[in-house]
């Protein structure tokens, strides 16, 4: 059953056509990455799925219910960690639950511990490193009651090593809690390592150019990063994206 369905979504700002006829779906518990050139409209697409922007045409459905223009069904993790500096880590993590109803401190503490942040529950965000903040921001999404999580380039500000650690950590948490994730990135390797499926957007106006189902078995081992098969995939996707003459991290 598909969790999210994006049907023929188009969006223009005046004469600037950003999205044209974008359609794709995400199954329950699936991890899907969106790869697209910079400025192709990924954040715009997120705002439409999140219900805080109206598409010029097309619909968005979640669990077969139309949610076009209706916020409240999605949990979004922005590019910057965006924590509230005046809240402790615990209270930051509970924000999503507060918005829709009840706080479950027990589960939050459990998650914080699992994220390796035990002892920081009552610290403030400025006492944490960039990677730690990003983990907090992600826990906040995982604890929110919404069934679909949107991640907008969450690791782009981190260095290569932290990034790989964070990817592994993200997978471990996701495998445990099984939520549907839509993940935006510029990084082919990252998309390959994390996703069940990769959707490639074309340059402006963006539409779905191609979809790849990534067959690596789960749970994923970082050793696949060096395998021949992984390299082949990287090449295929790189070629696909290069045809539109776009700069990507290779």
């Amino acid at each position, binding site marked *: 059953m598909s969790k999210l369905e994006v049907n023929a979504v188009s969006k223009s700002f005046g004469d600037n056509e950003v999205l044209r006829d974008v359609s794709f779906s995400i199954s329950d518990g699936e991890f899907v990455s969106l790869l697209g050139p910079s400025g192709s409209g990924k954040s715009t697409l997120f*705002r439409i799925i*999140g*219900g*805080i922007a109206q598409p010029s045409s097309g619909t968005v459905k979640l669990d077969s219910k139309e949610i076009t223009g209706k*916020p*409240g*069904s*999605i*949990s*979004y*993790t*922005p*590019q*910057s960690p*965006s924590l*509230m*500096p*005046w*809240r402790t880590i615990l209270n930051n993590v509970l*924000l*999503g639950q*507060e*918005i*829709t109803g009840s706080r479950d401190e027990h589960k939050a503490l459990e998650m914080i511990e699992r994220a390796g942040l035990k002892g920081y529950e009552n610290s*403030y965000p*400025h*006492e944490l490193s960039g990677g730690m903040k990003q983990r907090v921001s992600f826990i906040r999404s995982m604890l*929110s009651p*919404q069934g679909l999580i*949107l991640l907008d380039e969450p690791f782009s500000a981190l260095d290569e090593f932290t990034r790989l650690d964070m990817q592994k950590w993200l997978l471990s948490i996701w495998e445990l809690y099984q939520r549907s994730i839509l993940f935006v990135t510029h990084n082919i390797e990252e998309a390959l390592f994390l996703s069940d499926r990769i959707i490639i957007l074309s340059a402006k106006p963006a539409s779905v150019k191609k979809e790849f189902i990534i067959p690596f078995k789960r749970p994923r081992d970082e050793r696949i990063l060096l395998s021949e098969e992984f390299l082949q995939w990287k090449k295929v996707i790189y070629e696909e994206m290069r045809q539109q003459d776009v700069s990507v991290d290779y």
Partner: protein
Amino acid sequence: MRSFLQKGWRPILVIVLLLLGWQLSTIILQIPEWLLPSPTQIVREAITGWSIFSGHITSTIQLIFIGFIIGSSIGIFVAIALHLVPILREAFYPLIIISQNIPTIVLAPLLVIWFGFGMLPKIIVITLVCFFPITIALLDGFRQSDRDLKHYMQMAGATNRQIFWKLEWPHALPALFSGLKISATYSVLGAVISEWLGASEGIGVYMTLASSSFRTDRVFVAIFIIVILSLLFFGIILLLEKGLIKWKPKEERERHE
């Protein structure tokens, strides 16, 4: 406290040297007391005259306090209203910015004409000088709250009210306090000036009486009291801020101390 002593001795030394120079020059140059009294003469007057001006001080403090509370409440209220109602903001924000450049104090004589010499015109003057810095600071604070966080909250289904109380209001608190600090100093000034224009009691009255009878020592006593009141008031706001905003980044806090 220790760090205060470590860094604070230089300005204190400067002040002591200044006072010493002042004292010496009044003696050496034989400046008459009505022109420039020496620091010791001022201190003597402050001690012997305490019974005369203590009543004036309480009356002024009362005035400052009432004016400040009313002025900042109105300032906060106006900022919230302008922020939450976009039509109001579009209509009034430019006017508020422009009117900030008008020294509100010049309205004081008019207010005396309209409302007489009682408390009311004075409180209006203080309210007017308090209100602008707070409204402007708070509005900027509201507007500068994190856009990504706002999007996160909106997508999660937050109501406007939740966004205001959970995001915009706490985010604007530091800005509110910088507004309050400016207003605290302004309100002392506003109180004294409004007392100059006519009152039965207050430091402003004490000051006018002193200057018209060439009691320069008393004028200086009044000046020092005004300075001390301003600093005291500023300090109270600072303490409140430190008590309420505990989450400021470390580097910033260290830089303040």
